[in-house]
């Protein structure tokens, strides 16, 4: 494993607070995910890939921007693993260096309609940029 990648893996485990070894690979997280079909790497694989330190692939994953933070996987995991926390931690690793920002202020106006609630914009900023 690349040394940087190992460091990323450690950061992700620390920031997420997830003990990936608790996973028994039952797949209930992926079974429960409402946006499964939109993801290239699925919730259960986030757990195993973090365990294996396969972080760079996760950082490239489209799934980072498709996770809805609905916590269904967290709620239903029989072993308390919290896959959504891992996805969040990887996402942060991508957007924390500023170049990783997915949402730029100048792009906002085009996205808006008049009814969009503030909190949606705020959360989009929180989710997609730093």
């Amino acid at each position: 494993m690349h040394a940087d990648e190992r460091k990323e893996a450690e950061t992700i485990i620390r920031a997420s607070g997830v003990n990936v070894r608790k996973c028994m690979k039952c797949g209930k997280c992926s079974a429960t995910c409402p946006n499964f079909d939109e993801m290239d790497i699925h919730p259960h694989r986030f757990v195993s890939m973090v365990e294996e330190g396969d972080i760079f692939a996760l950082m490239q994953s489209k799934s980072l921007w498709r996770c809805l933070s609905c916590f269904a996987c967290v709620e239903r995991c029989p072993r308390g693993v919290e896959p959504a926390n891992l996805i969040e931690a990887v996402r942060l690793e991508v957007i924390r260096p500023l170049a990783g920002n997915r949402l730029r202020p100048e792009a906002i106006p085009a996205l808006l309609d008049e009814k969009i609630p503030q909190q949606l914009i705020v959360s989009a900023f929180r989710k997609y940029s730093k």
Partner: protein
Amino acid sequence: MKFSYYPGCTLKTRAAELDVAARQAAEALGVIMEELPEWQCCGAVYPIARDELATRLSAVRALDGAKRLKNPLLTLCSACHHVIKRVNNDMQTDDDMRAKVNSYMDLDDPYSGETKVVHYLEMLRDEIGFDKIRERVTQPMKGRRISAYYGCMLLRPSTVMRFDNPENPSILEDFIAALGAEPIRYPYRNECCGGYISIEARDVAREMSRKIMNSAVKRGADTIITACPVCLYNLNENGTGEVPVVYFTELLAESLGVKEPEGGLVHAR
């Protein structure tokens, strides 16, 4: 009964109906909602990562504000409730987080999760009681068939939120029944509507919200109620449009007779 009230950003602007109706209903029920002085936006999403500190501070400020006023903190928006409740839980259970936040905030009296965070619905259920509300209803919603849409934020993760049974909640159904309408249960009422993603991928959000609305309508719902501005936006904008989606507080104010229906049930949005 007195609460410090945290309205949150959206209720001050786009979701003013949610806020105004809630205040009117509370007044009618004898609940004092004192708006917290100097509140800030909660950030709308709970910072899951344990190394996120700054994004927790505005929630802690609100919690500490209520603590100093010796009031429980009342929330209304699902997102605000979720963020503040979970940050409060961090302050109660995570020693490291508590130490860092307190050393950053430099409060005279360190905050360690003393404030009780109460959602408006919990207030109705636990403080007033749905039976009492039933007695206070002046315009019962006889013959109405109403579905509740819970969304994610109020219920999950249940170990922290402790709001209701996360897989088979009943608080909104009990609320609907208290107003005299028939609650219509359907299995997707606690599944995500995809609201967050509507900025990025509207088609995805559309598919998800339609699945939810279809399920409710198929069972005969004539209205859907919710507590979340994002869900309301998403179901209204990206849903099937077959039935109106309104805030639960609007129905409450209406049936307590404290708010005139403007142009029928759903006023111009």
